[in-house]
């Protein structure tokens, strides 16, 4: 099967016709264990049948943590991260959010300047049910305050055919959705061009989400022969490439 990019984009667009265009344009649709999910360009996975959104590695309060340690980082990363989440909730049918770990960056993130903003944002989306699968940063940062109404569970958390985790791992007979890695991939092209982009990383029984947070880096995982990668950038999720 040989397709040009333009044709692929048309195909994707055709599929999106049934849905609100603005919300999932540029997304890639996958069928995992019989469930149709969208890999959104906003770096979250949407499962429309259950109106669930999976978001990994938000790292709220990372900038505040740095400042607490005397490193001058401007604060507005939290605000813009929350705004990006709100936009998703507003445009898609989202009744439930499962945070795949590392919601708060560190203990120092649990301070008013961060939590007040998060609380105001939580109140705005009070109707959305939220659940945090504990990640390594959450273990250190402590559970979010009760008033945020985000219960915390340990990985793996089973929902339908999916096992929601933070660390990539294998859970028998389940498809693991995980974060932690902040996967990124370097694309190389003619003319010595290269671009490093965050990506969705798939290998059998496992889908790793890119980090949602803004102030986060990325690592390139070890490639396996059967891994598939969807780069994210320029407002779209791109067709899979082999890493």
């Amino acid at each position: 099967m040989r397709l040009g990019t333009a044709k692929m984009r048309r195909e994707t667009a055709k599929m999106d016709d049934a849905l609100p265009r603005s919300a999932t344009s540029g997304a890639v649709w996958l069928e995992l264990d019989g469930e149709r999910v969208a890999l959104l360009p906003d770096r979250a996975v949407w499962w429309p049948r259950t109106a669930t959104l999976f978001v990994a590695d938000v790292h709220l309060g990372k900038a505040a943590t740095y400042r607490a340690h005397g490193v001058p980082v401007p604060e507005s990363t939290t605000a813009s991260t929350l705004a990006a989440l709100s936009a998703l909730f507003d445009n898609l049918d989202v009744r439930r959010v499962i945070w795949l770990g590392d919601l708060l960056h560190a203990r120092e993130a649990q301070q008013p300047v961060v939590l007040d903003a998060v609380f105001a944002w939580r109140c705005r989306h009070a109707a959305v049910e939220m659940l945090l699968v504990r990640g390594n940063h959450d273990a250190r940062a402590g559970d979010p305050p009760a008033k945020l109404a985000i219960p915390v569970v340990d990985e793996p958390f089973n929902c339908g055919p999916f096992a929601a985790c933070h660390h990539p791992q294998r859970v028998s007979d389940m498809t693991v959705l995980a974060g932690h890695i902040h996967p990124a991939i370097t694309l190389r092209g003619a003319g010595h061009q290269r671009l490093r982009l965050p990506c969705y990383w798939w290998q059998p029984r496992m889908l790793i989400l890119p980090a949602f947070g803004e102030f986060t880096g990325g690592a390139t995982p070890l490639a396996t022969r059967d891994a598939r990668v969807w780069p994210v950038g320029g407002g779209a999720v791109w067709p899979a490439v082999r890493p």
Partner: protein
Amino acid sequence: MPRAKRGEVDSASAVATPAVTTKKPRIKRTPESPAAAWLKSRGHEPFEFQRAVWQAMAESRSGLLHATTGAGKTYAVWLGALQALAAGQVPPPPSPVRGKAKRALAAPLTVLWLTPMRALAADTLRALNEPLAMLAPHWRCATRTGDTSPSERAAQTRRLPTALITTPESLSLLLSRADARESLGSVRLVVVDEWHELMGNKRGVQTQLALARLAQCNPQLMVWGLSATLGNLDDAIDALLPRAPIAPARAPVYWPTVVASGEDAVVSSGEDAVVASGENPVDARAPWIVRGQIDKALIIDTLLPARAERFAWAGHMGLQMLPQVAAAIDEHASTLVFTNTRSQAERWYRALLDARPEFAGQLAIHHGSLDKSVRDWVELSLKAGKLKAVVATSSLDLGVDFLPVERVLQIGSCKGVARLIQRAGRSGHAPGRASRISLVPTHSLELVEAAAAQRAVAAGRIEARQVPRASLDTLVQHLVTVALGGGFTPDALYDEIRHAASYRALTPGDWAWCLDFVRFGGPTLTEYPDFRRVVPDADGVWRVEDARLARRHRANIGTIVSDAMVTVQYLRGSRIGSVEESFIARLRPGEVFTFGGRLLTLVRVEQMTAYVRRAASGAAAVPRWNGGRMPLTSTLADAIVEEFAAFDAGGPRGPEMQAVASLLEIQKRRSALPTPEILLAETLKTRQGWHLFLYPFAGRQVHLGLSSLLAWRAGQHVPATFSLAVNDYGLEMLSATPVDYAALLPMLIAAPTERADDCAAGLRPRLLAEVLASLNAGELARRRFREIARIAGLIFQSYPGEQRSARQLQASASLYYEVFLKHDPANRLLHQAQQELLQQELDIERLASTLAAVNARRLSLQPLKKPSPLAFPLMVERFRETLSTESLASRIARMVTELELDAGGELVGTDHAPVATLIEADHDIASTLQLGGAGEGAFKPRKAESRRMSRKNGRARPSQDDSRVDHVDGVGLGMADGVGLGIAVGDTATGAVPKRHVPKPRLARWPRERPATHVESDAPGDGEDALGDGKDAPGDGQDG
């Protein structure tokens, strides 16, 4: 500090020439001064320049002493100091009899001796100690550098010695001590050794700030700089001496110059009368430049390749020349082999041992990453004449005298005339012997360079060094240092730092921003009370209150940016040195690497220490130390074009040009030769895309800015993405999409028409706007920001003890860059990144003059069918810049399409149907992957693994130390011209071929902790490109 002024500007031009100055000897001869007596007791007659310095110091003058290496600069200043400062404290002893009572307590700290390199400190200490017994028995000297033992440090904390030999970084550390003012207040003299090495970089700026601080504690402070070959002595002394900012009227500054040659020493004519009559209308303590003219015979020659026509067109290891180098070493009792990088030193050391096994025990390696004990052993053995040869980097460039060395070999380009002379001076140190340096080319064009270097030395053309201006990152660091060292009040400190030449013109706005930055983290952070690095106390004195911040700051003082270092140590036993963490992280236990000239097996890595044991044999990896590459100076580049022109004109040819003749004939056949009159441009279409090669010969740094500008201009016509490569000769623009360079070129190189009044005012607003726009489209500023972020305290170097807790604070400079760009675009550190680029690399004036020069030449556009010898090194250059005027989406789209085509047109997972099938089909693969359960085992964090992954994921990427020559897609590099192209892939001469990177299926392993340095280590050439003055040497001077 006094400043010397003269009313009439014209008199400044009356700088000494021997004809004028030999008329009136000025230096008083006091035949039996204690210093002279001591020198005579050692069988030396004092030189005139030494007497001149003694007199100046007796008169409490500051100054700059400029003489060739080995001329006796150290004793000129040191004996002067002993006479001027020690004599007053006790009566000079009549004979070298040691009084017992005087040993009781040494005099307080009086002299600070700054040296740019740790390696020099021990040698300087030995030299300074020698005359003490006779001239100042109550003085005590000691060193304090990064190599100083903790016990010695503790002793110094209790009481500092009379004379302290230290580095700029260690001095800053002393300034950060709470009792800095008291302990350093007694300093009466600061000597800055090898000032020419420091003045052009931020370590020099750091030194300026420290001097301003010391001068503030003691207004009578004397400062003496020692300098070797330099083109701009006036700038050097101006930057060295702290002095009040000049009034807006800009009084002309004039430095009296003392030329001391042979018998006579005179002050230059302008000041003659003043000194002669013993009075100075301005200030009797006006500083002097003392110039010791001791000419030393210098021989420069070149080792020629055996078969020049088979010699490599590119590559930089140069092991093809191994037989000639080994033969040259055979000829002499002792030889120094200089390389330009530490990796190259390691490779050459192994290769020489392989070629001459009998050298074992007489061949040593020396570079800044080796442990002090190793370096000391090499230096002492070399001095004692026990070594046949030492392979060294710039760590042996300076200071230390090695009498037995008869000849210096320079592998690869020396990059500059001053550096060539400096290195040559390492040989023939005994009186009456000539210095001899032999250049060893690593590829054909370096033969031209060798000929050009000889031409430039013969003509006496030596580079000038520019002093950095107002680097805010260094100032921010200094503010925290001073806040630790007893605190400061802003007004007083503003006044103080403007005594440093680099900050004389610092605006109140910039100053206020720096204060805000250390207090609030910058204007945008004002409302966040959690950030406080430096805060004013009740009395308005700014201090650092947080002990943790204080500790971290002290650990990070310095302006040399290096990656986290890992100590290399035998399993039980001695330390060998240190390498960058990113290198060790790529190795697995059991793998072999070469370090310090030894083959070592990695056993394990623990707490920033790599434990190793000796390996018998094996294919060894060579560590790669980061560090910029030195740019070729424009002085040398100009000389190269002249060589080309002379060749073209068919004049007499030296042996180098004869050797390279066949290559230049190919250049003429395929294209043309560049000359001072012709601007050569070449175009080429390959599978990689559309290439343009342009040869302005303006040096690497200018080409970097020029290529960005040209690419940005080209991108204004059609949005495109360019990959840019530069070297010292020219630049390459490569686009994956068609570009008609032939049609565009006149527009690309046009100099923008500026308004006449702007030009008159020295402004070039249109060019500046274009350059700034090109900066934003490219990555240059982002790279530059890395260094700035470290110095300003945004990024911390990891150090033992705080490893774990610091992890959550690790972020890469590029991450900061993006966050600042988005949320704090007014951040002045971003501006500094741009400013530094504009000043140091994209100097608008220089760019404008380059454009003018380029336009003045006749354009010769040559469409190529095959790469020309000049184009080839650019094509295979792996450190490239990217500049794009396209949208991110269209860039991704093109690459994704290409990747699909590369993969045979197979499309996977583009919509849900194929992926679903794919997932089903892969079920059985999953079961064979042994992913293990959800347990830890399968996904145990392994840093080394994750590093490896990022490497394997790329295409085959030979390390920097493999030959620079990559494959060149779709280019016919044949024998069609009847002349073979010796392409040095992995230095075929030794049979060392780079390993093929065959991607293998691997087990999935995920790092549990994500090392944040990933982001940086993955960036191509991050910190390796020649940005600024970073080179191999700074690593050697790392200290603190």
